[in-house]
């Protein structure tokens, strides 16, 4: 509610018809709730340059109240009053209407900032200050406030001395909880928006910087600081996050992950350099960056290692470094390792895992049946002709080309895993392989409701055409059934 609206006699909670009557030229717009909440969340993240513990108060998706835990952070700004002035002034200078207070409890700070002028209250003066505030300052529901007002209880001080059972019976336990939270008898936890990293290093810039190169140079310095601190504790970290605080209250976050515990500043800086290259399209420093914070997470004990003259060169470390670099530049899910699993169904026998996850050394296992070197993630429909229905395939039509199959081995019959009900082996049924364009995705059909071994049986054949190309094909279904069997190409042999 700004002054112009107030001067025309409008007030929050007013009926729209009344407002229109007062002001015929009124333009009405719906509030963009999610948009505002997101913008406010950005603002909240930006306030982590005061203290890492910042939360948006109220139910999820709300906006308007910001709680900052400044325990142990005030001295960085020259005391609590200087901190409060800084926080309020920099928002006011951007044209926001803002009120703030510093108090020992979240409830008291909320009450003071909403119902008193901006001030700092310490533990001794808390009860006195709260006593004079209206009951609405306790973050109560409207009907609770109305009830209290009816009974003549207008100030918090009037509630404080009363018998608790009576209050609880009349207004519910939430009133007592809010009261206790304000006075600090009940603990109220602040859920920070950004996860708190134990180890961090930060740098403020008197003049905002904008170039990515400057940011990376500063990151190098921070990485060295962080490495010293981690080394003192005998720790290494696997996750690193770089937070760039823009002057215009936005925060950009770059995160990288290392395959093994590290604190090597060169390596960490290089990972951020690669990530920044990938990020460069969306990098926008706005009016400049005035603070950078480097955080280390997922820490674990890392013993000091000998480097230089007597270092034992380990190929594994080089490989992990390479994987880190590739992963930070190419993005998540681009560097993978295959892992074998106990399943006889071809597409389930292997899964891809990030290469950074610890690789379990595969046990030597008995020789497996012959499998193709490459597997299609989605089997492609083909048309097969055979001399007799159940004979070896003799010709294949795939991607509009026909292949004459001279040799074939099979069938190798694979049935569905009976311990899984339904849906596992189901494939998309094909309308007609000849009319289907290769790029067209076939429609997805819901899984069968119950396990049906006969419908989900595949007969695999290894075939070779006249030029020596070797394919792995299978037939799903049986001849002589009401539903005709369909053929698919699933892989390529070397």
């Amino acid at each position, binding site marked *: 509610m700004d002054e112009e609206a107030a001067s025309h006699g409008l007030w929050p909670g007013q009926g729209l018809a009344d407002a229109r009557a007062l002001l015929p030229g009124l333009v009405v717009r719906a509030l963009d709730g999610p948009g505002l909440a997101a913008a406010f969340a950005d603002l909240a993240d930006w306030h982590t340059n005061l203290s890492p513990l910042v939360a948006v108060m109220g139910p999820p998706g709300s906006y308007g109240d910001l709680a900052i835990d400044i325990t142990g952070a005030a001295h960085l700004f020259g005391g609590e009053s200087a901190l409060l002035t800084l926080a309020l002034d920099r928002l006011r200078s951007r044209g926001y209407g803002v009120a703030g207070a510093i108090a020992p409890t979240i409830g008291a700070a909320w009450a003071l900032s909403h119902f008193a002028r901006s001030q700092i209250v310490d533990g001794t003066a808390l009860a006195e200050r709260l006593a004079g505030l209206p009951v609405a300052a306790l973050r109560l529901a409207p009907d609770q406030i109305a009830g209290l007002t009816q009974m003549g209880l207008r100030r918090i001080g009037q509630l404080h001395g009363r018998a608790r059972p009576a209050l609880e019976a009349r207004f519910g336990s939430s009133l007592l909880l809010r009261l206790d939270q304000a006075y600090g008898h009940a603990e109220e936890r602040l859920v920070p928006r950004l996860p708190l990293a134990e180890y961090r290093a930060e740098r403020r810039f008197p003049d905002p910087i904008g170039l990515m190169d400057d940011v990376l140079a500063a990151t190098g310095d921070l990485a060295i600081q962080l490495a010293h601190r981690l080394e003192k504790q005998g720790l290494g970290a696997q996750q690193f996050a770089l937070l760039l605080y823009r002057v215009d209250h936005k925060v950009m976050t770059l995160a990288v992950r290392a395959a093994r515990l590290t604190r090597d500043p060169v390596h960490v800086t290089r990972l951020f350099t690669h990530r920044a290259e990938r990020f460069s399209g969306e990098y926008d420093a706005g009016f400049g960056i005035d603070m950078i914070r480097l955080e280390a997470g997922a820490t674990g004990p890392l013993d000091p290692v000998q480097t230089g003259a007597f270092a034992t060169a380990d190929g594994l470390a080089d490989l992990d470094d390479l994987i880190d670099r590739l992963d930070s530049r190419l993005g998540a899910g681009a560097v993978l390792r295959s892992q074998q699993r106990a399943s006889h169904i071809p597409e389930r026998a292997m899964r891809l895992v990030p290469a950074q996850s610890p690789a379990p050394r595969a046990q030597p296992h008995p020789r*497996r049946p012959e499998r*193709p070197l490459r597997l299609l993630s989605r089997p492609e429909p083909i048309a097969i002709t055979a001399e007799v229905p159940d004979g070896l395939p003799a010709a294949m039509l795939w991607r509009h080309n026909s292949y004459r199959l001279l040799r074939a081995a099979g069938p190798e019959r694979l049935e569905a895993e009976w311990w899984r009900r339904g849906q596992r082996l189901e494939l998309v049924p094909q309308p007609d392989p000849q009319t289907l364009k290769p790029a067209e995705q076939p429609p997805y059909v819901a899984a069968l409701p119950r396990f049906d071994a006969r419908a989900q049986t595949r007969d695999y054949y290894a075939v070779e055409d006249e030029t020596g190309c070797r394919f792995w094909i299978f037939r799903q279904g049986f001849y002589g059934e009401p539903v005709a069997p369909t053929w698919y190409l699933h892989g390529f042999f070397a």
Partner: protein
Amino acid sequence: MPPADRQQHLAALRATIADIERKPALAEARAQVESAMGGFPQLQGGLVQEIFTDRSHQIGAGLGFALAQARPLLTGRREAVLHLQLAGESASAGLPYAPGLESSGFASDRLILVRPADMAELLWAAEEAVSCRAVAAVIAEIGGNARRFDFTASRRLSLRASAAGCSLFLLRAGPARPASAAHLRWHLLPAPSGPRPYDARAPGAPRWQLRLERGTLLRQESGWLLDWTDHGLADVSFPGAAGRKGDGAALPRPVPAALADRLSQTA
């Protein structure tokens, strides 16, 4: 331009080309081929090899040829092979399949799959991987899209590979032969396989017809007919190797170790 100047200019250009073409790595490879008469030679690390197939679905054969050469390059120090493939191409060309690698005798946990989004990233990743000391070989699937992969890019890669001693296999497809600085260029054609013991109608061990199109490895005819067996690449066109044709049915890999173990217990 006067004729004398032109002559000089040409000579200078020839010198430059000779400089580019001078490949010290290849000389060593040649010496090795000389010593390994018969069979397909084991080429040492640090070479850039282009493997051309006619059609893109034959890239499975190219992958097999590259893996067959990469397997002996794996050592304790160099313990990984990187496979680079554009993320968008795996849907049509398929991904290397771990059980298939195992049944071909390649330990699947040694293969790291890298899936860059575009060609520029793939080239960057190839360069990083080739210069890493812990990588035995890099297999890059260029396929038919050679637009971003020009002579300069291949020259960079071949310099890196020679310096670091890491082999690079470029799997390419199509009839075009764009300029590149690869040490060796193979034309690989799948060939009808040899007979499989006990089943005459079944395809045998993978067999390829190989032609060396660029670079020389001593032999004048520079053509091979290879079988990929459990024991590596066997030259079936060479008469001396004819007796090894049945290698497709040789003992699977873990078994000889088990036999030896039992022998030592009884002895």
